[in-house]
């Protein structure tokens, strides 16, 4: 496992957008359907978990911010601990990807957007009762009106892109 900076491009091979929160670091070429079908399957599992754990529930988010239930803290806390142990194991045993490549972790450098954007997202999260993942799951679980929320979120991302260079970071 190696840790790289956001801006890091190895031998000019990796050309993911800088500051991409979810970059693709696979070097081996990927086909559109055959390679990506496994991420569709992963997404499906995630969608099922999101619904069955009720993390997509607007009420659960209200409970969390009112400190009236441990549920959401338990879910996120367990997820972080499980994720962290997994990453440590990948590092300790130098596990490779199924393509035999070294696992790459990106260092997320601090900028003031983490705070200003984070606060903005938090305000929105409490209203919509959903972060981006659950937005998709809410639509899938029959709340089709959330398509409007999703379109607004896409518009928000677009407006950020429009003013990115003028915003404090």
């Amino acid at each position, binding site marked *: 496992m190696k840790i790289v900076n956001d801006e890091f491009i190895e031998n000019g091979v990796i050309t993911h957008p800088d500051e991409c929160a*979810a970059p693709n670091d696979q070097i081996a070429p990927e086909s559109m359907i055959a390679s990506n079908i496994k991420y569709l399957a992963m997404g499906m599992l995630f969608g099922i978990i999101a619904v069955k754990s009720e993390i997509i529930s607007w009420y659960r988010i209200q409970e969390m911010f009112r400190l009236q239930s441990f549920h959401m803290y338990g879910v996120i806390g*367990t997820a972080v601990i499980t994720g962290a142990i997994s990453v440590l194991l990948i590092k300790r045993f130098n596990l490779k990807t199924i393509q035999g490549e070294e696992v790459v972790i990106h260092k997320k450098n601090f900028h003031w957007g983490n705070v200003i954007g984070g606060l903005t*997202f938090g305000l929105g999260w409490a209203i919509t009762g959903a972060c981006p993942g659950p937005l*998709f799951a809410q639509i899938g679980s029959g709340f089709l009106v959330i398509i409007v929320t999703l379109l607004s979120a896409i518009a928000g991302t677009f407006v950020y892109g429009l003013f990115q260079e003028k915003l404090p970071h």
Partner: protein
Amino acid sequence: MIEFIRQPWAWYVSGALIGLTVPALLLLGNKHFGISSSLRHICAACLPTKIPFFQYDWKREIWNLFFVAGIVAGASIALAFLNNPEPVQISENTISDLAALGIVADGQMMPASIFSFENIFTMKGLVFFVMGGFMVGFGTRYAGGCTSGHSIMGLSTFQLSSLIATCSFMVGGFTMVHLIFPWLMKLI
């Protein structure tokens, strides 16, 4: 077995499964868990623009769009086959707090009195769909990630900036629920 799965899952089961998404994506093909990026890729793919922020090879990142399409499909499967007929069990305190604001806990995932098509062109729609959604999309991209990218992936890899971002998410949420929301609900 299926009856068992139909029940709401305990936090430690759900949390562990969500946490396993991190190594699964890394080992399947060096992908970083993060969902808000999909919104950026949708902008890059669908909106013809010269904005530098959207000038990149989005096709290389398309796995992320497959992942979110999967979330929609997975949630539909959960609804169709694994649906829990019992109402969502939330805290009595939350039920009474929401009732004081005029929101009746209806036992569904989300209050139908707010999240329905009739409300699209009302003040409720403007606040809950348009404004809320905008802040989620704008805020997550400005922060460089959301609950998945920062709070789960970022904290799992011990990143200080993700810890700061996660604390900011929480402060924003507490501020909305305790300070702004009571005022907002009177307004709409």
